[in-house]
């Protein structure tokens, strides 16, 4: 007989695909680890310290705000770890750690917790943090140090260990002391923009050029992104849209004047476009939920990036392009609602 046990009442569906938010976020972290690892190999312990700092500060900030708002421990969803690692990868390898800590705090506090935490942030938190320090510390964030410096695993870049609230320690003499031929401290994008010198696309693809901690190895980013796309933890339409949008603007220009304008491949593999397209633009929360909207949103980022790079005052524009598209994302979603079953095509989306 039924042993007096009650039966449970639930609502359909009674089956559930096991993959949860925490699993998705954890896999994004896995996909980021090779990129972070390459960064450490390339820039040494300075890069390691940077990644550890931003991740820890981001986690502590998340814990603080989840405690204050009484939502329990939200570290379990892993999303803040992504923010921490991504933020570090967008910063120069010799970025002062105290400034990185400020960036991480701002990223999580202002970019995420203020809006209500996971699921409610309007923009990518890591980029909010970076935008803040870009405005606050314009010199430090454009001070680049050479990759594969000798002794990078034993000594920090001088600016890394700047005391809190102090101006960054100068790195000029230290770089001269390294005696690296031809190091000018200019990124490939800056060289292209200001001197019309093009770094070869192969170098960009395989890594080892000057730039932020995580923007060098395009190949690794691609592999990580493809892994996530294959596991359907990332909407492939977004990076495809970004690359298509960027190429759409730059290809006619390049065909018209290939001396002044970069090739689409250069645009794709240089700067932060790879990392941005695969790991930041694809932030599910700040991107449109509709399939067509994802294309539009991606293309908007691609177009904006190229426009800022070629016609704006900055040599790099991925961050602002993504932040702008994040802001436009609810609008894009509302005008690209799917066409409901049983409706004639003419009706289209309803805003």
């Amino acid at each position, binding site marked *: *007989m*039924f*042993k007096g*046990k009650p*039966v*449970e*009442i*639930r*609502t*359909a*569906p*009674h*089956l*559930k*695909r*096991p*993959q*949860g*938010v*925490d*699993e*998705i976020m954890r896999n994004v972290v896995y996909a980021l680890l090779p990129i972070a690892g390459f960064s450490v190999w390339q820039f040494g312990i300075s890069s390691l310290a940077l990644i550890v700092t931003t991740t820890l500060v981001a986690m502590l900030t998340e814990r603080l705000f989840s405690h204050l708002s009484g939502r329990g421990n939200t570290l*379990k*969803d892993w999303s803040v770890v992504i923010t921490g690692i991504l933020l570090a990868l967008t910063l120069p390898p010799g970025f002062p750690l105290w400034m990185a800590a400020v960036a991480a705090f701002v990223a999580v506090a202002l970019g995420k917790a203020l809006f*209500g*935490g*996971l*699921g*409610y942030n309007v923009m990518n938190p890591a980029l909010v943090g970076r935008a803040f320090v870009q405005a606050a510390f314009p010199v430090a964030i454009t001070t680049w140090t050479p990759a594969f410096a000798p002794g990078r695993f034993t000594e920090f870049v001088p600016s890394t260990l700047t005391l809190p609230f102090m101006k960054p320690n100068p790195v000029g003499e230290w770089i001269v002391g390294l005696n690296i031929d031809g190091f000018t401290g200019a990124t490939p994008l800056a060289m292209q923009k200001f001197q019309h010198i093009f770094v070869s696309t192969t170098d960009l693809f395989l890594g080892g050029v000057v730039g932020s901690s995580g923007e060098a190895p395009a190949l690794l980013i691609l592999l990580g992104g493809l892994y996530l796309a294959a596991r*359907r933890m990332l*909407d492939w339409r977004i990076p495809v849209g970004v690359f298509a949008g960027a190429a759409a603007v730059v290809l006619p220009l390049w065909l018209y004047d290939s001396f002044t304008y970069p090739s689409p491949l250069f645009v794709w593999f240089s700067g932060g476009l790879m990392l941005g397209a695969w790991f930041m633009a694809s932030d*599910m*929360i700040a*991107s*449109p*939920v*509709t*399939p067509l909207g*994802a294309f539009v949103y991606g293309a908007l980022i691609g177009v904006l990036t190229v426009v800022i790079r070629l016609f704006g005052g900055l040599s790099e524009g991925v961050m602002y392009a993504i932040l702008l598209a994040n802001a436009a994302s609810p609008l894009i*979603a509302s005008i690209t*609602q*799917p*066409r*409901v*079953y*049983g*409706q*004639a095509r003419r009706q289209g989306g*309803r805003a």
Partner: protein
Amino acid sequence: MMRLLNLFRRHKTFSHGGIHPLEYKERTAGLAIRRLPFAPRIVVPLAQHKGAPAVPLVTVGQQVVRGEPIAGADGHVSVPMHAPATGRIAAIDLWPTAEGPKAPAIVIEVSQAANQAVLYDEPVDVLALSPEEIVQAVKDAGLVGLGGAAFPSHVKLAAPPDKPIRTLLINGCECEPYLTCDHRVMLEKTDALLHGIRIVMHATGADRALIGVEDNKMDAVRAIADKLPDDGPISVHAVEAKYPQGAEKMLIESLLGEQIPEGGLPLDLGVAVYNVGTLAQMGELLPLGRGLIERVVTVSGPAVVHPGNYLVPIGTPVGFLLQQVGADAAANEVILGGPMMGMTVASLDVPVTKGVSGIVVYAAGDADQQPRTVYPCIKCSRCVEVCPMHLNPSMLGQLAQKREYGRMEHEHHLSQCFECGCCAYVCPSNIPLTQYFRIAKAINRETPTVAV
């Protein structure tokens, strides 16, 4: 783009969405239909179909014979009930139902000495009858949609003159996990099924009939095809095994390439859809002039020791059935129907009704029984990708949380949702989207300004 991909697919399917949950059909698909013993007490609810409840024709204390009509139809959209077993009417009283509230039912004390032979025969050559006579015969047999909808079958037969039925679709998809009763019916009662199809074609004047079967049941496709001439009006088609292929709107799109206009009926396309189980019963019962008194039910699930497909008298209490299959010890959740759209029962006194195609029983330790953390929506767009109606469940869910039920209907076509559960199944945030939508629809029905 998707159209291009469809070219490489082996079998037809609907255009957007759908999911592939684990099927769990292997435990019962190979088991032939078996008969179970009669329960000591059988309960026949008067409302086990859509429409008006039946009206009792018997009084308490009266003896009834198996197959005897015990309740009559009340109007056009209603069907009669027949005694599922020989015995004595013990009560006509309120009884628990799967939906929750108690409803009137006829309780039969089954006579242990009776041989349970059906003595109510009226053999007839169905194909010699006029369409009107067939509609009446189907109604007298108490037939309803056995796939789960339980809509009176004769109502669909009598199409209005301005919208004639040209095409008949026979639904053998059985896309719900665990369920295999339609599969077994197609294999074991192929002749009855084809006879049922011919009866309906004769009654409606439809000039072709398409049988749609998911391609995980190719043996059933072959069994049916073997009995059909190549150029006849009846044809059988494999469709992709993808949930919810068996939904009426999906199957129409898969087989005919057309979508029912929003708010419309299959009849608007000149189509009527019948479940294979319904037509197999029709082909079996009508020539004999008998009523619907039993049906095939798949009993399966992790907590069932002896899963299988059982021929169960209508009105058998679920608790008795579970004892017979050894599911009483571990049962934690008992679902009538399939796990995607079925309903949990609150009481094991609930009887098996005409619309119950399966009983799935879970034990407390099963993975799907564990509570899951609900996260906020992360806009991953999986629900948008799987919704077969092309809705935006993510948006609908956010509106539901803000209780903006009117906007859900007016701006996002809430009433097009048929609660297949795909969105809630894939949601990584474990948001109970389908339940939100059920609540929103229930509230909208009672809000005059929103009523559709």
